[in-house]
């Protein structure tokens, strides 16, 4: 029983699209990240390392999104700006990796 003044902290309920969207996102990013990582392990080039880092960041972003839905400790409610910043850093790695000779 909670005493007076104490409030029970629980996970917020998100709209169904958040669950579907984040699940699809983590599945796709995991597949791409695994392929990129395997390609890096075989080729060991700087170009593939940059690409793997970029797609790895997308994977981390996806993981955070999933944890935010189901684990209270990760429910930091990141601002839209934070999400965009993480994506921008990931895209920068992919861009450098793509343009690198």
């Amino acid at each position, binding site marked *: 029983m909670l005493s007076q003044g104490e409030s029970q902290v629980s996970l917020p309920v998100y709209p169904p699209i958040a669950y579907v969207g984040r699940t699809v996102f983590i599945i796709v990013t995991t597949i791409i990240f695994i*392929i*990129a990582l*395997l*390609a890096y392990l*075989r*080729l*060991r*080039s700087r*170009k*593939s390392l940059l*690409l793997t880092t970029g797609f790895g960041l997308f994977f981390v972003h996806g993981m955070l999104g999933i944890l935010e839905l189901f684990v209270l400790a990760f429910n930091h409610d990141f601002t839209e700006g934070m999400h965009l910043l993480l994506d921008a850093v990931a895209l920068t790695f992919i861009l450098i*990796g*793509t*343009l690198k*000779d």
Partner: protein
Amino acid sequence: MFKEEILENDRRRKIYAVIKKNPGLHIRELQRVLDIPLASLQYHLNYMARRSIIIEEKAEHYTRYYTKALDPEDKKILSILRQKTMREIVLIILVSKKAKYHFLVENLKLPTSTVSFYIKNLLENDIVLRTKIGYENVYTIKNEDRISKVLIAYQSSLLDILVDRWANTWLENRIVNEKTKEEPKEEDND
């Protein structure tokens, strides 16, 4: 010549895969499963047995065949040769015994920078050896028997195909760059 050798290698891979799946098969059973002429099958079995890729066990009336497990060094080489272009380079050198840099570029039909990148990787992993003859670099396989064994034991997987296509996609812009640049000298590429 290459095509023929590669086809032979494919046939050996099929035989190896059947023996691996059904250890202890004898030649008649293998022939029924694979539908290969007996003489040809016997030739490939002898080839693989000589190189210790498969094991022969002589019973009263039959010789039974088993595959030999890959050791850690084989597995290390196999992980490198999962890349299609690496396998192609190794096969070309293996078939022609030794190959010059330009010969590899011509046969692979890939940009010089891409070929150099793959050769460097093979040299670093001790799969290929480089010898300088005059002004040209000549490439040979360090351990032919081991490489033959690994190439026969190799079985492609969906993941391998995906990784191959991924690597090709990101290397494509090297080809575009190549066209705009002057072809570098051989010494620069190696």
